[in-house]
């Protein structure tokens, strides 16, 4: 391994960028374009899928069978993204997603992984004590709820389809979309109405 790798990674990055630009392999415009595309993927995309699944049983079935096609059906760009799997929470069954080896995250539908998802504490604790872990968000599941932890170790990316919260019966799809947060689709929180 090159001793140069011990240098400040921020300086390494600046140096590498300058070399790639000098070689004609990259421009500032390429970076800006890629950043804009990446910033466009946000938890709002996944929230739209969840809300649609709550109101449309046909869409729900599609989402559970093939998350990638379900995302594309709502106009979410999935080309080049890993296959998306969807984990269905049911009364008495809760899912939590982690990547213990690195930070695999359903970026196409949730955006950049949040800081906590990438932390050593989250990665270590999730597979062993998910109840204690999600309590850090104040999440307490009904007694008797089974928790299945999904360690995202390979080519799929996983999102949770959470339970539609009690009291939300009168809400339309747009209002339901606004209820769904990033953590609800990883399983550290659950959607609540009127929080």
């Amino acid at each position, binding site marked *: 391994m090159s001793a140069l790798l011990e240098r400040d990674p921020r300086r390494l990055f600046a140096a590498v960028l300058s070399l790639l630009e000098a070689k004609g392999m990259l421009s500032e415009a390429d970076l800006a374009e890629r950043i804009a595309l990446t910033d466009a993927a946000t938890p709002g995309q996944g929230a739209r899928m969840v809300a649609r699944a709550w109101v449309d049983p046909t869409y729900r079935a599609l989402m559970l069978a093939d998350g990638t096609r379900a995302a594309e059906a709502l106009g979410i760009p999935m080309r080049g993204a890993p*296959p998306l*799997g969807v984990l269905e929470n049911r009364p008495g069954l809760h899912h939590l997603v982690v990547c*213990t*080896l690195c930070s695999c995250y359903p970026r196409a539908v949730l955006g950049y992984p949040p800081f906590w998802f990438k932390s050593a504490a989250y990665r270590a604790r999730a*597979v*062993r*004590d*998910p*109840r*204690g872990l999600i309590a850090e968000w104040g999440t307490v599941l009904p007694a008797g709820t*089974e*928790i*299945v*932890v*999904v*360690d*995202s*170790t*390979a*080519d*799929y990316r996983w999102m949770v389809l959470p339970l539609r919260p009690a009291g939300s019966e009168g809400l339309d799809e747009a209002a339901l979309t606004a209820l769904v947060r990033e953590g609800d689709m990883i399983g550290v929180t659950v959607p609540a109405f009127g929080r």
Partner: protein
Amino acid sequence: MTPLAPGARVRVRDDWPETRGPAHIRTPHYVRGREGVVVRHLGDFPNPEDLAFAREAAILPLYHVRFAPRHIWPSGVSADGLLVELFGPWLEAQR
């Protein structure tokens, strides 16, 4: 290699390639040597153990395998199930 069907009992190979030199392993340490049950075949993907070194990579079956966390850790466990994506060559069918 015979494909593994949902419900098949498997044991993850108790193998530690990272002790033998540079390696990139997507089978978490905590499932090695452990028994689980195949949930489903997720598809076929190139072997990341080769892709990581820019080597030619065989296409391998990828399975979702379920484990019982309480059989993995002796204490401090509140998970009821654990689903892990594992490649075929890591799995030994059990009777």
